[in-house]
């Protein structure tokens, strides 16, 4: 992706602000990110029933909050003009974030100076209203996004798009985006931003008070994507039907998908076992082992680069002391967590760099469970602190309990503090959480990227408040280092620094697991956590 002359640094730093690079925590729409063992099944036209944990909060992507159910649905019902391709990884199909291809668009290509990107629309794409998707719709949608000053407007800034005038209609099927500066991230950003409203229909509902038809669009599902919403029963069920008017590649395989809202994981499991649903997106880790043995249920499973870690705040006592950090690293029962919490369905790791990332070095995290070593690191002290995790995240809670129990043996007394989303967000802003359990996956499989998001000064996900002059310097250096071996050498040094500084306790990399009825095929593991339902089919 770094194939242009623009500064790597700016690209990567900007990249840090792209939403969902590192989705923290569990989420409704399948956060157990990894590849999938999709056995390619023929196109099926059955009805697929999927359970999710919550109903979407709004149909209007421009104004929605951080609602993963909603974002997942948008991916399937909005016409996204470009999207990730699919690739095989270890026998599973996963979304290929490096390969962004036009879907509803014909093409999306830059000018020579990489500043002007021309979007050519596919002809014959129809909204449910019968209106054809045209350049005017793209223009209206982007104007609306700028006017909203919200989600898309925010990410567009990273690629030098700040004003509506930068988006121009050339003809009915051609739109140009004129960026203030070239960016290597343009495709990535546009992949999550190029969704289009049916502007003809929307304008009908615009009023003087509400020129962008916010009220109407919040309540009425967008159309024109791979699926159209034929019915939405608030809080309960959404029915999707394949969009017959999509002329591009990879049309939806399932004719009808019913998405039902079932907040309780056990309840989802019951229904999956009873055959009342085909895919359960909200089943907890604990049920996986049972479900693997259950009749009629297949657990789609794959290794993943999801990292489960405890980020230790290096600026907050007592973890400002590296010895205390080391002590905790020795005190965490890694194997026990993998066995008890993940039922063995996770990979132990020896570095903060994910296992499947180029440059992984098994010497990057030389800590194993050893209470004596932990005590030695503490030098006879006992310390008190707090371990924060998400209120309704059963997996994190289980890990926290195990960590607390073992840390106590080493002389680290931890108070467990489950926080609701708002409080967690608030406290993260204040940067005063001594220990927090995080889980997530990097969107770009590169250490430089990892540093940019999590380990350099001011990085958005740097909950450890970690700063290290050498890391900063290596990071700086990496922007201009293109030689693969030289980069690997840098990464080795990075991992040495991490081994000494221990900003994180890296617990494990759990495998992705999704229980489905055995009749379901075609699952593509979404790297951004947002399931692409078009690949799914059922033979029931």
């Amino acid at each position, binding site marked *: 992706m770094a194939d242009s002359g623009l500064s790597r640094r700016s690209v990567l730093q900007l990249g840090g*602000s792209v939403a969902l690079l590192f989705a923290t925590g569990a989420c409704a729409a399948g956060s157990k990110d990894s590849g999938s063992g999709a056995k390619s099944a023929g196109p099926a036209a059955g009805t697929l029933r999927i359970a999710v944990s919550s109903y979407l909060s*709004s149909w209007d992507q421009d104004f929605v909050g*951080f609602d993963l159910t909603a974002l997942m649905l948008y991916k399937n019902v909005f016409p996204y003009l470009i999207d990730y391709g699919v690739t095989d990884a270890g026998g599973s199909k996963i979304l290929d974030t490096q390969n962004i291809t036009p879907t509803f668009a014909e093409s999306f290509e830059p000018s020579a100076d990489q500043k002007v990107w021309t979007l050519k629309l596919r002809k014959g794409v129809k909204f449910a209203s019968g209106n054809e998707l045209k350049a005017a719709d793209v223009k209206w949608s982007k104007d609306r996004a700028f006017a909203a000053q919200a989600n898309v407007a925010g990410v567009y800034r990273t690629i030098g798009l700040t004003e509506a005038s930068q988006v121009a209609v050339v003809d009915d099927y051609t739109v140009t985006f004129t960026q203030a500066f070239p960016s290597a991230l343009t495709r990535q950003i546009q992949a999550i931003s190029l969704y289009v409203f049916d502007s003809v229909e929307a304008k009908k509902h615009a009023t003087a008070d509400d020129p962008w038809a916010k009220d109407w669009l919040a309540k009425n599902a967008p159309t024109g994507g791979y699926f159209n919403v034929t019915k939405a029963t608030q809080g309960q069920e959404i029915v999707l039907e394949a969009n017959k008017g999509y002329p591009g590649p990879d049309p939806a395989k399932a004719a009808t998908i019913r998405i039902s809202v079932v907040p309780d994981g056990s*309840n989802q499991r019951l229904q999956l076992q009873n055959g009342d649903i085909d895919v359960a997106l909200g089943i907890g880790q604990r049920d996986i082992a049972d479900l693997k043995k259950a009749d009629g249920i297949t657990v789609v499973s794959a290794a993943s680069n999801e990292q489960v870690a405890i980020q230790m705040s290096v600026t907050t006592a007592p973890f400002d002391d590296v010895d205390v950090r080391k002590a905790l690293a020795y005190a965490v029962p890694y194997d026990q967590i993998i066995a008890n919490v993940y039922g063995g369905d996770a990979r132990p790791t020896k570095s903060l760099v994910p296992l499947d990332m180029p440059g992984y070095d098994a010497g990057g995290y030389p800590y194993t469970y050893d209470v004596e070593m932990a005590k030695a690191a503490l030098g006879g002290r006992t310390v008190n602190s707090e371990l924060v995790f998400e209120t309704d995240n059963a997996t994190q809670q289980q890990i926290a309990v195990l960590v607390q129990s073992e840390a106590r043996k080493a002389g680290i007394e931890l108070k467990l503090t489950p926080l609701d989303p708002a409080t967690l967000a608030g406290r993260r802003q204040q940067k005063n959480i001594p220990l927090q359990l995080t889980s997530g996956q990097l969107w770009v499989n590169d250490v430089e990227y990892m540093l940019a998001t999590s380990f350099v000064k001011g990085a958005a996900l740097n909950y450890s408040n970690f700063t290290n002059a050498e890391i900063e310097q290596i990071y700086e250096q990496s922007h201009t280092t293109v030689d693969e071996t030289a980069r690997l050498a840098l990464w080795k040094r990075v991992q040495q620094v991490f081994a000494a500084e221990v900003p994180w306790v890296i617990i494990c990399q759990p495998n992705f697991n999704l229980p489905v009825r055995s009749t379901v095929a075609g699952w593509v593991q979404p790297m951004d956590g947002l399931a692409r339902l078009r690949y799914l089919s059922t033979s029931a």
Partner: protein
Amino acid sequence: MRLLRFVARRLLQVVPVLLGVVVVTFVLVRVLPGDPIRTILGPNATDADAAAARARFGLDKPMWQQFLDYLKGLATGDFGTSIQSGTSVGSELALRVGPTLELVVLSVSLALLIAVVLGVWSARRADRFGDHSVRILALVGNSMPEFWLGLVLILVGYSALGWFPAPSGRVDPDTNLTPLTGADLLDAILTGNGPAFTSALSHLALPVATLAIVVVAPLLRSVRASALEVLRSEAYLAATTHGLRPRTLLRGYLLRPTLVRLPALAALVFGTAIGSTVLIEYVYSWQGFGQWALRGLLYRDYPVVQASVLLIALGYVIVFLIADVVHAVLDPRVRI
């Protein structure tokens, strides 16, 4: 009319209470730790993004200004805009209230019916075996945590016996029920949708049973005690010694004086039941008001929390008002 005047006067009396609730809620949600804006932005948003979003929801203004705006909105029936969904809280509320009310009203009505029938039955057999068993059973029901009972009923009624539909909704969407009030049963009746009615009824059965079992005990106790008191009262004794027929005794001399004290308690139970629905909605995937309010609270969705607390308080107050009116209708001694 006297009754209307009474209602109007009572409504005036509740204004300060509601105002108090409004103020307390407004301050409370803002005093709570946690940042609603950050929860909608995701982890990677910049401070500028946050500021923009804050401005969008008016949260950058001083608190008193926000309060005035909120009050102004309330006066025009505008509950504000949900931070999480960006839609009007009023419209979300409208969707959420129906299902919960349906659940609570049916449950409490069922509980009342059971309480009156069994309570009177029990009182007439005071201190015999039947009376004792009814009371103990009611107490057992009252002693179960509703979420646990819900779980047990799902396992038995859905998993094991298969008598009831999957606990994942309120009515089979295939019945094409047109939502009018949000209360499915009512909507089915209003639109004459037979299959939807059956479906809604079968979905309601377990949650209503759960809630009714949990709340029936205090009602039963009260009815039994009142009935017993009436049965032992001189008035009833007088009617008995004057040789009135059993039917006349039951209808004219036992039932009404027994029910006189019930409305106030029923209102209280109704309030408790509203509290309990949060748990029951969770267990039965009942997308109602409780779930919505709880989620709003967890995400510090200020307008949602404010609206839901105000609504619960209003509901509480109205239920008590209704109770008072019913009491006044039942009991001629009450002056209104």
